């Protein structure tokens, strides 16, 4: 049974999407339940995949799509390949998808009225695409899946408010350029090696010793540029803030934590699996230096741009830009801790971005204002929501025991070990800026005047005062928030085992 898990993770939401569209005509109210079940099953399977991969008997699951027989030469068919790294990211994707579906229960009807079945179909297709990207072992298939995620996400974003259409169009342009760059890179690789299977490409590169060859270097650069565009690596980030901020809230909460992270995963995978550490770090020592300084720029610029915004969702989107800088810098530091730290940050950043986006969406919805003023007095009015928000924010700042602290720990120690002080300073700078951003918000939420309560009136007991009513949102939004903030803490507590698994898996790949 275990050997079929990888394909089942993909098939369940794929058929879920089809069923939702068919159901949508007759019973639109069933769409939510159907996608909840399909994503629940899918995340359950990916959870068991994580366990199976960890159990020692199976280190790497391989699945030949369509049952192509093993040939003596190169792989002909498409292969799925799941090790612990892929399993963790796939679990993150499906689980966030599942939890986000709970969140969308009441929102979908309100925000994309009339298109509910399409929303659920697209989001499931998006999940299929993301999981496929993570699991596939075929470079061209990876491109196809990138396009699947892009197309679905263009549609999902465009469902938002009036400004969403233009944002989506920007995203289409940038996304297409990024994907084409990636495809060009793969084309070069195919010409030189004659195969598209990632393991085989590596094998041929090694056997024929093509490392010095111009077209391999060009291929690498094209692929990197393509992937960076897709992950919004500064200064290629222009499409991201508007796209995520103007999308329907339940689209934003799903795409913000996952899309960029999956592309970071692709980058690490290309670096480690296809080209290998030696080629990436040693053959051209200047590359690492340039990319790390670019990531320093990304971190600093992302933080400052976030600081300058007053719209809560815009702040969060620019923070994503900074966080992408963390991960790119970390994985280019040319040492084991950096790569593993960047990978750990994929998971932890997904958790905290998810947490913050849900909290922000809830607050924007409830208060009806997306500026930071919306937070005035919220600790008294919406204590539960604010607790969730606080956990995410503390993690962004990097305070223990949240996962943000530990990813910073690993990334900073990698920076110190590599002697790259610019990167270390950038990380600390970004922590400090995040502290300013979030404590400014906390101060508003903690002291701010609540509308309807007289100024300078401090009730001796908040729950005895009739003016202040606790006004929370329905459970279908609070539960996802608490799952998200819980996983921020859980990832922090579990950081040691996770980090060891990641390090072991990366080491295994490199030998």
């Amino acid at each position, binding site marked *: 049974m275990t050997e079929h898990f990888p394909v089942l993770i993909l098939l369940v939401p794929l058929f879920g999407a089809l069923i939702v569209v068919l159901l949508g005509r007759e019973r639109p109210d069933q769409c939510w339940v159907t996608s909840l079940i399909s994503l629940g099953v899918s995340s359950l399977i990916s959870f068991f995949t994580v366990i199976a991969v960890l159990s020692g008997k199976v280190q790497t699951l391989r699945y030949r799509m369509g049952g192509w027989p093993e040939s003596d030469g190169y792989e002909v068919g498409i292969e799925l390949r799941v090790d612990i790294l892929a399993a963790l990211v796939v679990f993150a994707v499906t689980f966030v998808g599942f939890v986000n579906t709970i969140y969308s229960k009441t929102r979908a009807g309100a925000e994309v009225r009339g298109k509910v079945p399409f929303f659920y179909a697209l989001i499931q297709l998006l999940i299929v695409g993301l999981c496929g990207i993570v699991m596939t072992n075929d470079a061209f298939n990876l491109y196809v899946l990138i396009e699947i995620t892009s197309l679905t996400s263009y549609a999902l974003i465009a469902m938002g408010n009036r400004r969403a259409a233009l944002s989506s169009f920007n995203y289409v342009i940038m996304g297409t350029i990024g994907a084409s760059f990636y495809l060009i890179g793969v084309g070069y690789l195919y010409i030189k090696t004659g195969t598209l299977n990632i393991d085989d490409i590596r094998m041929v590169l090694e056997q024929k010793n093509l490392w010095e060859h111009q077209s391999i270097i060009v291929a690498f650069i094209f692929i990197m540029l393509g992937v960076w565009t897709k992950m919004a690596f500064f200064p290629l980030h222009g499409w991201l803030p508007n796209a995520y901020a103007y999308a329907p809230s339940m689209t934003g909460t799903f795409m913000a934590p996952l899309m960029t992270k999956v592309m970071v995963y692709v980058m690490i995978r290309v670096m480690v699996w296809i080209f290998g550490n030696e080629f990436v770090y040693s053959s051209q020592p200047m590359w690492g230096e340039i990319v790390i300084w670019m990531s320093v720029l990304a971190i600093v610029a992302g933080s400052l741009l976030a600081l300058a915004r007053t719209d809560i969702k815009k702040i969060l989107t620019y923070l994503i830009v900074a966080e992408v800088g963390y991960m790119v810098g970390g994985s280019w530091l040319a040492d084991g801790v950096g790569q593993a730290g960047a990978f750990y940050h994929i998971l932890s950043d997904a958790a905290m971005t998810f947490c913050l986006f849900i909290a922000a969406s809830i607050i924007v919805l409830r208060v009806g204002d997306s500026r930071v003023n919306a937070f005035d007095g919220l600790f008294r009015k919406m204590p539960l929501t604010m607790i969730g928000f606080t956990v995410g924010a503390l993690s962004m*700042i*990097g*305070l*223990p*025991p949240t996962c943000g602290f*530990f990813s*910073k*720990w690993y990334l*900073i*120690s990698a920076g*110190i*070990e590599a002697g790259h002080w610019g990167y*270390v300073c950038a990380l*600390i700078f970004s*922590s*400090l800026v995040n*502290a*300013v951003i979030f*404590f400014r918000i906390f*101060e508003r939420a*903690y*002291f701010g005047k609540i509308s309807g309560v007289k100024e*300078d009136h*401090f*009730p*001796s*007991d908040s729950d005895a005062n009739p003016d202040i009513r606790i006004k929370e949102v329905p459970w279908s939004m609070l539960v996802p928030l608490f799952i998200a903030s819980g996983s921020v803490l859980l990832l922090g*507590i579990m*950081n*040691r085992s996770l*980090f*060891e698994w990641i390090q072991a898996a990366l080491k295994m790949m490199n030998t």
Partner: protein
Amino acid sequence: MTEFSFIPLFTWIVSLLAVPGILLFRKRPDAREGITFLAAFLKLGMIFMMLPLIREGKILCFKFGEILPGIPIEFRVDGLGMLFALVASSLWILTTLYSLGYMRGLKEHDQTRFFVCFALSLSATIGVAFAGNLLTLYIFYEILSLSTYPLVTHHGDKEARSGGRTYLSHLLGTSVAFVLPAMIYCYWKSGGDLNFTDGSLLSTNIGSDAGLIVLLAFTLGFAKSGLMPFHSWLPNAMVAPTPVSALLHAVAVVKVGVFCVLRVFTGVFGTDLIAELDIAAVISYVAAFTIIVSSLIALTQDNLKRRLAFSTIGQLAYIVLGVSFLTSNGVTGSAMHIATHAFGKITLFFCAGAIFVATGKKYVSQMVGLGRQMPVTMLAFLFGSLSIIGLPPFGGAWSKWYLFLGALEADQLAMAVVLIISSILNIAYLLPIPINAFFRRPPQEDGQAETIEIKEAPMACVVPLSITAVGGLLLFLFPELGFELAQLLTKK
């Protein structure tokens, strides 16, 4: 001798468990304060249970799981931690009693939140005192910053908000910017170890320059110690209600800062290594500068609490100065000064609060002739001042004596002179207050009666301040316990 024990865990957790209790009884103030008292006494009791073991030279430890490779969250109770925990938890009981009088006397708002945060801060303080490695220390240090923020900003007005902003930005900012990278550097340099061992975490291969940078990063990064130039959070935090200023800003928070510095000197580097690298002089100069400048600023302050705050900054720098002598007398003096200054300064803050509760006066210039109206309070103020100045028969005399010896032993005559000048400045900014209160008449206003009646603050305020004043006296007469614990630190 290291021994596994659950008592450190219980000592830490008891004030944490008080939080749900306090919340549960938020509608019944007497029961609510009862829970705080219960937790405080339990805590002190458990510390007394550990005391004989520690005096035998044992080290009690308790480990949670490893949170980072090779680094568990660990409690490890040694002499220094014991000394600090003893001071903090015994003064917690008195402060609770005092805040009961103060908060109810002024009919303050949000008392439940106040007591909840108080209990949380105490837990964090004990966590710092017992921390067995740098990471544990750092975590509780940060928790302390966050849990005291609502206390500092208790009044919620504009002044409190800006005070709170300075408070958090200084404390969080320095710890993230300096301590965190320094800690990670140590982790890397020592090959994945952050434990406070008796020797040193680092070794000579760190080199003088890097060593100096790391040492400075730690010493300035633990900005709770109030060293200049990161001291300005302390005077600004005086917007807090007085019991908070008393316990947190004369005892718990600021002492956590110097405690961390002591740990860095003795546990992370080890005094031998610092001597070998020859990097302590810079710290001495920073501390000496802080002592003199803060004392001079204190002279100019009319707001009593602000004057006391600047006095605290100077006194904390004594502790840093003492440890930077790297002699056993200096370190002993520093450890002792944690205790003696705590008793002296909390007395002064209690008095300032009592004066405010009874008369509403905040400024030194208003306190002329107050001795007739509040004799007990002003007498306690005198006791506290003398202890801070370091005159016998008060506890402060011992710690200053040892600091002075340490300076001579280290051949630092300039620093010895700094200590003397500072003592003179202490006299200049503290003693006029009780002297004017007792020997000058209050300015007469028309229609005011000649005779002044005795009108003290509520008993709940007066009793604790009398106890701490007498405590300062007792520390002079019976200093053995403090010595013993302090010397466990320097004994190899």
